């Protein structure tokens, strides 16, 4: 799951050189897109710069759909010097690949959110490590719930159940302990030897 945030206005303004076409992607708007901020900013930009077209469409990460949606704007895009894209990193790269000869710029930074794409953001996250640790931990993931991704227990730095790296975060290992306690499975922590994480290539097998 991705979250896109607008880059600073100065940064974007500096990028808008010459005839500029703006492409907005609303495909994942239900997840996150700073629609109103982007809209207000683009109006301002249109007043100061030579914005020849603002295109709002969806799922520009799909190259076929992107081509279809941009078809009627071909002339404007061909005449443009710069294309500004408001989308996640996948969308920007797809536009850049379609217009290899054009300056395609990103107006957003992309951050990860818990959960995979397509599903409402979740409270749980998966690090896709390829060797699921959930069996020994009562179903709480030490890779994502512990800020240090420790696999052999608490680091000792937590204070009152809060992580020492980020005080807003609960200590993942304390959560694991509480869950195992509830399940009467604390022995898991004593006897199961930690499975060393294989960073090599989880796809190899």
């Amino acid at each position, binding site marked *: 799951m991705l979250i896109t945030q607008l880059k600073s206005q100065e940064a974007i303004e500096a990028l808008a050189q010459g005839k500029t076409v703006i492409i907005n992607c609303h495909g994942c708007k239900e997840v996150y897109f700073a629609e109103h901020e982007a809209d207000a900013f683009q109006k301002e930009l249109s007043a100061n710069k030579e914005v020849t077209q603002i295109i709002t469409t969806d799922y520009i990460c799909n190259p076929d759909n992107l081509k279809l*949606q941009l078809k009627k704007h071909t002339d404007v895009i061909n005449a443009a010097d710069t294309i500004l894209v408001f989308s996640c990193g996948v969308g920007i790269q797809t536009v850049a690949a379609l217009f290899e000869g054009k300056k395609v710029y990103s107006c957003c930074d992309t951050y990860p959110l818990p959960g995979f794409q397509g599903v409402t953001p979740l409270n749980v996250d998966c690090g896709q490590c*390829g060797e699921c640790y959930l069996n020994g931990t009562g179903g709480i993931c030490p890779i994502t719930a512990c800020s240090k991704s420790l696999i052999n227990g608490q680091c000792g730095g937590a204070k009152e159940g809060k992580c020492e790296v980020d005080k807003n975060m609960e200590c993942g290992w304390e959560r694991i302990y509480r869950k195992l306690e509830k399940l009467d499975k604390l022995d898991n922590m004593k006897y199961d030897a930690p499975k060393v994480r294989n960073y090599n290539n989880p796809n190899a097998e």
Partner: protein
Amino acid sequence: MEDYTKFKLKRKEELDAVLADKNDLFVVACNKCFKELDSFDEPECGLFEEIAKEQGKNIVGSAQIDFLCNEPLTSKAFQDLIPQDAKNVFVISCGLGIQTMAGLLDIPVYAGSDTVTVDGYHGMALTTTLCEACGQCYLNMTGGICPVVDCSKSLLNGQCGGAKNGKCEVDKEMDCGWQLIYERLEKQGRLQELLDKPVELRDYTKVNHKFVSEYVKSVREERYEGYYGGIHPTEFKELSEHIGLVPFPDPVNVVIPMSQHAGAPAEPIVKVGDQVKMGQKIAQAAGVVSSAIHASVSGTVVAVEPRRHPVSGLDSLAIVIQSDGKNTLDESVKPAGDIDSLSADEIIEIVREKGIVGMGGAGFPTAVKLKSPKPIELVLLNACECEPILTADHRVLLEYADEVIYGLKAMMKASGAPKGVIAIEDNKLDAVELMQAKTADIENIEIVVAKTKYPQGAEKMLIKRVMGKQVPSGGLPMDVGAIVCNVSTAKAVSDAIQLGMPLIERVVTVSGNRMNKPGNYLVKIGTSVKDIVNHCGDVKGDDVTVKIGGPMMGFAQADLNVPMLKCSNGIIAVETIVKEAVECIKCGRCMDVCPMELRPLYFTKFALEENWEGMKAQNTMDCIECGCCEYICSSKIPIVERIKIGKTAIREGK
């Protein structure tokens, strides 16, 4: 097609070890996402069960489910599914599904699978373009090729020097990312730009946990606010919400179709050549679920013949009246008294006689709703107007507040409901304030402000939001003691009682970003859509779709020579949507937004296969055709169209 499955069964040795001390297993498998929807029975529960049986384990049951990570739906599905004698649950899914189950159940949950990274992880399409979501996009310096993903070392300051013939030294199958960047920038004449720019160091600080967790919380709250799912399309209400109502210039001819309501078409009681007066009944109800129809102008009946109908698109019987421009009132148009002096049955009779039907879109005869065989505890006035662009209800609230409240009181009396609620979305705060002030002294009428979300105005959603009750599958609002009516309907009820005026005109929004002069008009029923569009300065551009109703559920019109109906709340001109449907990739977004908690992805498949049994089993008939699934579909599948095909087939008894 490539396999994007994010999980694989754990190795047998590992499973053997985990299974060793556990028995009485329940096995849950997720039907995988992001794969071509070719069959529904996906996962290899079987393989896991074999391993468990080899060890002599007792398997008490198993389940396969779609989108296990969708917590609200999963928790409902598992409410009574896991038998008491299950001691351990094994889940075969990605890490999200396993953790979701572990969070839901009180017995131990174990992973039967490992989760792996696959291409196309981010973005909605099955693409090989990746984004690391590093939080500081480098694409502006690199010609739109990502150095974090496309360089195996994620270098930010250029080639490492190890590439041979353009191939990476780490993985010889992979192109050197920096060489790709170099070539693209060279092509664009931007090499100097790259050389001049200082390297922007990567900030590896983890994204602020508080920011992310609060954001996730807010998105989830919004998504589940009031009822499950729903969407937030761009509203475009600012185009017309501030424009006051104006009577539309009197039409020369009106075409009044006999089908303007749910149920049987009305039967004409006038013939060609007859002189009619404004408000005169010209057609009578044909049965209980039907409605009378009245002349919206005075003049001469010039035709009683089939004319093109805006909803069905087919020709259907209509009465055409040529106006004499005088609007002479019929003798039947006179005040009927007031609420206190009228009995419940008398009010219902007035509502029936004056041809009042639901004006929010469906056109269900209001008198039938009011004459409920079940006790009614609440009349819910629907002023959500959740469709984008439309502002007709908003204007009615602002300009006819007293009439709306009067109509609500009349309907409460007619149905015997002790309580009335006016539900307004929070994008109409001026209307909320006004209605709150007007109802401050009325004890049994409450104003409910609902957070804007489409399709809140669907009666089942609104009942859930306001009353917290669920209308049973196939049921009606009266099954939970509610009557839901549009605000314009309440205004019409008030006019019928206070003025004796039948339903012959309504408020219509004419808007959309392709309409030259948006506005809100009082339009006579039967006025030509073409005349209205012309009056409003016609449409802009040649890629325009004109719809009657809102952009989500409105009916697109190929020919504008159609009349406005009692339930036509808007004429909108919007950019034509160009799309080509591709295969469903099981992204799960349709299930994520369906307010009826259905699984639209199944319908798309079943409609093509003509699998009507499957359609029935997936509760197709519960679909309210709100179009959320189609709006969000990353494969651009015309889902609603396919659902309608299925519904028609089921109705025909297939």
